[in-house]
């Protein structure tokens, strides 16, 4: 009966409550006037207490009966949620920042890449559904900001931030944190960037022992990825979370796919990354954790994750939309320094928004762009394949929508490539491109070396190359043309490279290279190729080449196999999109090139009289069928201006144009008319004149003509 509508098993729950409250089983037994064996039986799950005893237990733990019955949260007994700052090293060592975080600048695009890759790696594969990732930019001001600061115990943190700010001048991390705190106070706002994933494994495992939770929250440079196809391998990705926070603060709420302590929902913890500091006479090593003090730790000071109730989670802006497993990361004080670089060229922008690194609309735009660029393939399905990933981005201010939730659509972000991949999945590719919009597929060999430095080839993996020309201009989007996107099993774009040596006039195209498990289960040596390429990826996951791992596991020259693949790919692309070179052209290439009529920069105009040009023309047909024109002339700077003759002609398809006579030609401003010639005073820059044609000189009805007006120098014949 006690099991109805309950969260956790009674036994483990009670054990933890006792620990939190600092009570022993014997003490509880005494309070309840029961034997120790009875308590022990509850904790090991051999029996459950009677309903009447439940009330006594609640009393003993200082909570209400409901909590004991539902057990969805911990009792508030024991030690309250707090910040635990790691004490300074006894040897006096100082860490002035997290080295892993230095590898990245605050760049939401890098964050998008790393977090999305993590979510892809942690996807629950059994149900075949995609992992859903949602980015929420939330700007807090006024009361909402005050409430949030209270929820994270800002007053306890503030002395630490002040201490860091004081020594900011000589540390990189210190300066960033100092700027972050000042921005919050001066502008009265705080940007939260939340990354949620659903249908992912969540932060499972013990608080301290090996497991995903400890890998993310407690350790650095540890990667515990779920499979051989995984994108990440260095454990650096999580550092981007802290790097994106100007305050070095990230809060986490995870729903677990595998229960821990009998529970799955609302496992919450926060982690702060600050440099070494001295507060109140004590020195602190750097990191700090936000959680419930662990009674098992020395002095019960270390903060561990706790199972929060819904209200706490809401106050921390960590509410998850469903009970699907996955993790929410809340980056407090998100900023995007890299966005400044992007509009470095537009000097106009700078004056408009003063280079704000915390503009949520701009971050929204940059996130959508980066996600489309790096993950279009993972978001694309077709044939029997479902997409692996669904991503959306939204922006809020104090709970009000600023930019509505936008699902990143691969066919909008990368139309040509998405079309190519879909055609591949649906088996609709062709061997040669015969019509615009077709997708050509080609096998490209990757010869895998033997591991351990042995000479020779393990086998040849067949990668799949897809090439399609851009069916129309819109398909290009704003990206570069003629690029090959390379991907492996996790279908994140690893490498983007142009194809060199394309002949002039090659039709714009986009290409996709599927290697390893992305090439399909049937491809030979897919697993081995996958492993090989994963080892060849640097921490940035943006190319394949020489790495330490490649050297250690294969040989120092193993990367040449990748170069050979690139060469094969480029020549296959050229073969598909460029016409074959036909018979040697007579007279040599150099001469043929010299004899091509092509536009050269024009010679400089000599000094002397300047020639006015027609700048604007307004013409209507008058009541008598004559053309009435008003024309504007612009004149280059010059002392002497050539007199010009306006000539009205009728446009024809071929042959000479019939000229119309003027019935009237009148100067309006900036010029004089003399015998049909326009004369300009020296120094004039603009002029205007009016005219009417002589109907009797019209060869056809005016309504059926097209008028051409020209200014001619000299006599105008």
């Amino acid at each position: 009966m006690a099991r109805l509508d309950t969260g956790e098993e009674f036994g483990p729950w009670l054990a933890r409550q006792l620990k939190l409250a600092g009570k022993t089983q014997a003490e509880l037994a005494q309070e309840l006037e029961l034997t120790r064996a009875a308590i022990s039986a509850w904790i090991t799950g051999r029996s459950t207490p009677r309903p009447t005893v439940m009330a006594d237990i609640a009393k003993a733990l200082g909570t209400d009966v409901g909590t004991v019955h539902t057990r969805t949260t911990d009792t508030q007994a024991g030690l309250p949620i707090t910040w635990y700052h790691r004490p300074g090293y006894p040897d006096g060592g100082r860490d002035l920042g997290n080295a892993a975080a230095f590898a990245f600048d605050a760049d939401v695009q890098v964050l998008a890449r790393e977090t999305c890759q993590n979510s892809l790696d942690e996807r629950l594969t059994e149900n075949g559904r995609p992992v859903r990732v949602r980015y929420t930019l939330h700007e807090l001001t006024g009361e909402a900001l005050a409430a949030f600061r209270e929820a994270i115990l800002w007053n306890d943190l503030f002395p630490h931030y002040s201490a860091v700010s004081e020594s900011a001048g000589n540390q990189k991390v210190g300066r960033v944190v100092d700027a972050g705190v000042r921005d919050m106070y001066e502008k009265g706002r705080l940007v939260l960037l939340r990354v949620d994933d659903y249908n992912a494994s969540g932060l499972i495992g013990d608080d301290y022992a090996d497991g995903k939770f400890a890998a993310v929250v407690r350790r650095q440079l540890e990667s515990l990825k779920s499979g051989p196809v995984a994108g990440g391998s260095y454990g650096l990705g999580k550092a981007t979370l802290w790097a994106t926070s100007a305050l070095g603060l990230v809060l986490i709420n995870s729903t677990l796919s595998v229960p821990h302590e009998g529970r799955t929902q609302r496992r919450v913890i926060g982690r702060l990354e600050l440099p070494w500091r001295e507060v109140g006479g004590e020195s602190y090593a750097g990191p700090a954790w936000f959680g419930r003090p662990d009674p098992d730790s020395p002095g019960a000071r270390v903060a561990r994750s706790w199972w929060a109730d819904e209200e706490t989670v809401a106050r921390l802006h960590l509410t998850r939309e469903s009970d699907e497993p996955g993790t929410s990361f809340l980056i407090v004080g998100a900023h995007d320094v890299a966005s400044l670089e992007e509009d470095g060229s537009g000097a106009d922008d700078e004056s408009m928004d003063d280079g704000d690194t915390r503009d949520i609309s701009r971050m929204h735009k940059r996130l959508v762009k980066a996600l489309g660029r790096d993950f279009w393939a993972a978001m694309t399905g077709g044939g029997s394949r479902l997409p692996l990933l669904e991503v959306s981005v939204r922006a809020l201010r104090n709970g009000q929508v600023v930019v509505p939730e936008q699902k990143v659509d691969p066919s909008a972000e990368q139309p040509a490539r998405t079309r190519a991949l879909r055609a591949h999945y649906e088996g609709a590719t062709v061997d040669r491109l015969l019509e615009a919009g077709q997708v050509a597929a080609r096998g490209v060999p990757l010869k895998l070396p033997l591991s351990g430095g042995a000479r020779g080839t393990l086998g040849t993996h067949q990668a799949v190359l897809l090439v399609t020309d851009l069916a129309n201009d819109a398909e290009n989007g704003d990206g570069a043309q003629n690029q090959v996107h390379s991907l492996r099993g996790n279908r994140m774009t690893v490498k983007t490279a142009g194809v060199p040596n394309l002949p002039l006039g090659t039709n714009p195209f986009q290409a996709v290279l599927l290697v390893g498990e992305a090439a399909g289960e049937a491809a030979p040596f897919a697993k081995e190729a996958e492993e090989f390429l994963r080892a060849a990826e640097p921490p940035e996951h943006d190319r394949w080449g020489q790495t330490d791992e490649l050297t250690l596991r294969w040989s120092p020259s193993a990367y040449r196999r990748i170069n050979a693949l690139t060469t094969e790919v480029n020549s296959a692309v050229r073969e598909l999109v460029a016409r074959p070179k036909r018979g040697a052209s007579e007279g040599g290439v150099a001469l043929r090139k010299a004899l091509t009529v092509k536009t050269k920069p024009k010679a400089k105009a000599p000094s002397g009289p300047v020639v006015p040009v027609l700048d604007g023309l307004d013409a209507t047909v008058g009541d008598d069928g004559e053309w009435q024109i008003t024309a504007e002339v612009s004149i280059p700077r010059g002392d002497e201006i050539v007199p010009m003759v306006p000539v009205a002609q009728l446009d024809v398809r071929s042959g000479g144009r019939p000229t119309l006579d003027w019935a009237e030609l009148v100067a309006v401003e900036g010029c004089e008319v003399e015998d049909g010639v326009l004369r300009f005073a020296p120094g004039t820059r603009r002029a205007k004149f009016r005219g009417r044609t002589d109907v009797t000189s019209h060869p056809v009805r005016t309504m059926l003509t097209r008028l051409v007006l020209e200014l001619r120098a000299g006599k105008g014949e």
Partner: protein
Amino acid sequence: MKIYPYKRLNRPVVLRVTSVSLKLSDGTRDQLETTAYSTQQQTVALGIAGHTDWVSATIGLSATLPPGANAPDAAWSDLRVLAVLTDRETNVRTSADLTRDAEDGRDWSGSLEVLRDDHVGRASLAVYAVGTVDGVRGRSIAETDRSWLVDTVSDEPVRGLQLDVQKASFRKSSREWLQAYADAPWIVDTSARVPTVFVNTDVEGVIGLLDSNGSGVDSKVRDLLVAQMSTDVWTAVFHGAIGDLEVEPGGGPVFPTDWQGEVLREMLPDVLPGVQVEEALRQVHRRRTGESGWVELQTRIHYAAVRRADATKALAYVIRSLEQMNRESET
């Protein structure tokens, strides 16, 4: 500036070629690869497949009208979209009706048949959106702003006109007229469809030098030779073009349309800088046919040819590598 006496669309029609196929004399069809056309250069090269016996070509087209073409309050009715192929040399115009892809859409598509016998070289392909305006049928509402080129001969879809280069033994050539120039290393013929440079294979080593693609002094000398040849060629084609102008009823010259027009448009700004090409053509024509000024213009024409031939650069490279050679032999 051009003005129409009725309302039109301001923006141009966008035209794309989507496929090209050839009909051969034996009745079979050869669907060419998309490399037969270049969307960047807006050029179709029908000679690419190397067929000598094709009869006609079918060019698949897709056109997008500018916004507003389907506006319910538009000044036109009975909208039609036509692809028009114009060959100014043979004076042939071929047109084809395109059909709307979707009801109320702005995309139209269709295909155009190009008969080989109708053309000798390059024809231009444009799309017109026409309708009935104020009761007048077939008025143009919008056009493409840059025509596609359909080249029935070329094997490369490049827009820039390439002058022809041929090698021949002047003494033994079947072109008997070449024998008169047996002692010249090269000669320019501007009377052909495209100006052609004949290189005399009787001059030993000339072909070898032109074909060389090393990077030593050889290549520098080759570049100098190429510069010398192309100066000759550009001078000859300019005179060829200016000497053969059609004249308007009023006496002014008409801008030629084929290679002559392209050559003039390219060179006139260097011959008479700071003047619009139409005006420059009138001035040059006046000087050539009038009493004075033609002799003075020769320097300008020579200058324009030298610039086009990159003679200065070629000369500088030769001198530099000669100096280098001298220094090396000294040490």
